[in-house]
């Protein structure tokens, strides 16, 4: 009896070992290569990753490493792999194609990516075919560029006493060009446009508050991603304030086990918001004023747009961002959306992008009164009338981009850049 049992046990052990080997031998089948490759990339084991690349491609390890090192951006420098799903679309004994769906966690948002990989088999081992890199060359070797730099002394006198009255800078004057409370798909947002009408660059903070009919405060929140936070003199940005609640405040809410950068707890409003209050505050800022991101090509399709961004300056853009404002057929601003481009843009180079227009688009403007809009604590209207008495209203409406969309007629694209490694 014991003999039979030991034989059965031995068979189970052998079978398990075999299964373990099959599942873990990285080059035994296409799935394993793909998983091993992404695992190596995730843990920055680039030598391991290189060894999974087709040896018949003429890429040396030095070339591979160099290509990895020059790639910057949200996905290549700030992401961690969360999940991977491979789907082998075609397979024969020497070649395969695969659709690889990966989920990445970045500090800004979750990224879902679909890559199409081709694989080939050499001497019984599967390899990934190497990817082509963008061969675009900038026209010049050396670039020069003039920019205006800013420096705030802070306290001019070295003292631990309170700051001298004259060392306190005036808050830059902002002008809220439009602000409205909108309802989009069961959630409320304040959207609009704000301009720095002062002569110094400003760091902009926007705080919106919602009220019901009886002037009871319902919610307060600040503009997060949907704004250019740093504005040069006379620069305009679209903005959107989403109202977020306190996460996991109820006992029945369970805290997720993993970090979710897109964590959003919609606020539970006790009543219908009818009115809103917007407080815009500017402070003089001398940093993160990189504006050399150019929209260099664009093509509009039915449900998306494609285009190229060009970095015309001397800093590498780590995370390019597009702010897309939607307008109706009367050129009235109705919604603001944004997208982070996953790849960085090196100096004087192009990067293509793709953006899908929003689909569920039942946007309703609830209130567009500018009555309760304040700039640096003062009412917006008199200040803007004083500095810009004869404003050309809706000046840039002439330059809106027409789109063929059932709900929207025009869009405006604004660019915003985050520099991870300023030099």
């Amino acid at each position, binding site marked *: 009896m014991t003999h039979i049992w030991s034989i059965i046990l031995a068979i189970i052990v052998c079978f398990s070992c075999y299964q373990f080997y099959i599942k873990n031998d990285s080059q035994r089948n296409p799935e394993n290569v793909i998983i091993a490759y992404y695992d190596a990339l995730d843990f920055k084991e680039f030598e391991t990753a290189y060894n999974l690349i087709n040896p018949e491609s003429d890429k040396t390890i030095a070339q591979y490493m160099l290509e990895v090192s020059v790639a910057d951006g949200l996905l290549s420098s700030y992401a961690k792999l969360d999940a991977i799903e491979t789907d082998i679309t075609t397979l024969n004994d020497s070649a395969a194609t695969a659709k690889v769906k990966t989920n990445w966690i970045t500090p800004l948002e979750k990224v879902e990516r679909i890559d199409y990989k081709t694989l080939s088999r050499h001497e019984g081992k599967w390899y990934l075919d190497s990817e082509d890199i963008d061969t675009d060359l900038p026209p010049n070797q050396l670039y020069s560029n003039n920019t205006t730099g800013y420096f705030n002394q802070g306290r001019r006198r070295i003292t631990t006493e309170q700051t001298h009255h004259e060392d306190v800078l005036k808050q830059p004057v902002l002008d809220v060009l439009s602000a409205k409370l909108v309802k989009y798909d069961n959630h409320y947002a304040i959207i609009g446009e704000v301009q720095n009408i002062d002569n110094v*660059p400003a760091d902009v903070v926007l705080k919106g508050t919602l009220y019901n009919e009886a002037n009871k405060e319902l919610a307060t929140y600040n503009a997060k991603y949907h704004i250019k936070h740093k504005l040069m003199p006379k620069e305009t940005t679209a903005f959107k304030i989403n109202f977020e609640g306190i996460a996991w405040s109820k006992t029945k809410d369970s805290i997720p086990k993993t970090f979710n950068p897109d964590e959003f707890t919609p606020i539970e409003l006790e009543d219908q918001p009818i009115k809103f209050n917007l407080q815009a505050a500017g402070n003089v800022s001398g940093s993160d004023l990189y504006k050399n991101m150019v929209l260099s090509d664009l093509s509009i399709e039915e449900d998306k747009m494609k285009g190229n961004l060009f970095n015309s300056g001397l800093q590498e853009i780590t995370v390019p961002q597009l702010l897309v404002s939607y307008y109706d057929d009367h050129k009235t601003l109705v919604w603001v959306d944004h997208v982070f481009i996953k790849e960085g843009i090196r100096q004087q180079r192009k990067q293509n992008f793709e953006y899908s227009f929003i689909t569920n688009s039942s946007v309703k403007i609830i209130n567009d009164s500018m009555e309760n809009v304040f700039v640096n604590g003062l009412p917006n209207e008199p200040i803007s009338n004083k500095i810009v008495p004869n404003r050309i209203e809706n000046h840039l409406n002439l330059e809106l981009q027409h789109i063929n969309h059932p709900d929207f007629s025009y869009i405006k694209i604004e660019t915003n850049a985050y520099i991870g490694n300023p030099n």
Partner: protein
Amino acid sequence: MRLKPIYILLLGLIVLSSFAAIQDSEMRIDTQLLTTQTEFEAGSAIILKFSASEITQPKLYCSSSYGSTLVTPSIQENMLLFTIPKNISKKTGQVQWKLLNDATSLSGQFKIVPIQEVTSMETYIGPPSIEAGGTDYTMLVVIPTDRLDNALPDNTIVDAKHQFLRNETSDAITTKNSIAYKNIYSEEKSGRMLVSSESKNTNSKEYTITVFPAIPTNFNISALRPHNYADGNQITTFETSVIKDKHNNVVSDGTYVSFYITNHKNNSLKTSGTTIKGVATAMMIHPDYKTQWSIKAYVDGMAESDMITLDYEQVINDFEVNFSKYNRNITIGPLQSFMKQMIPDGLQVTLLVYKDDILLETLHKTSIDGIVNFNLNPNSLKKGTYNIVITTAGLEQSFKALQLW
């Protein structure tokens, strides 16, 4: 009736006691204020003298804006001398006093006036930056004080001085409720304004007000490019004329100018620049297809430029396509530029594979040395006939019914 003597006794006591009170006040009537001065300079020794005919030493209750205190007298030649403490005598204002006798209500007041000299000037100015044009102003507030930090009386003359460009101006203003103020208006020019104040030969420190230019007015733009070919590689630079405000001041450095470019497809492209000495420069990479750009620059809501148009000429008029390896290897090129040189690396070439009018694959590649190679994967594109479309530089070539093995 045994109560009667008690009533009489009580009445008698009341009458007696009123006599006693009268007698008492008659005795103290001699205590009088001898000091006649009712105005003292702050910081001077203030001594109130009272005549005293009596040995008891009543205290003096003093009350000023800084608080109240009791002063114990000293006796000198039959006089009661009350020295007002320093903390009261240093501060200007009314001082109420009352001699604390049992019954008399000898009381009065005197005034402490500031020393007629200015030792320091408490000065505030704000906002520290204003706009040129004569409507915006900054407010100078001066509080001249003596050496004991007392504000000087109303109508003290303060000279509010400021220098702007070649002008040095001095205006006499007067204090009211300790404060003298002046609104200093900007002039038409932008620049730095230095402000100070003077009162009774004492001067404040220097303050700086920046007068920024007003909002920009319309301007012109120009473009500079190494050639007018659409090679997708060179950079066109747009430049504005010197942007000025309506008073002919050059706008402040860093003013954001957006350049909108409309191409022949009616798509709106955008670049931007910030001004340096009024000139904003913006860069744009050349398109890689023949097009016409209409460019207009804006300072949102305030100013705009004229519109200029630029034509970009087609640089590649035709390209060769070679098929090899059972039509699976497709070589495009040489892609030649306007002088027959190889197009700079990075020209985008797109290959679309159709089968029965259904798009199967879209492949993008960029050129190296004027050549682009596509390899059609036999795994995903099985043996059969396909339609292939190749687009680059705005050109298109299609190959119908291409046989792949």
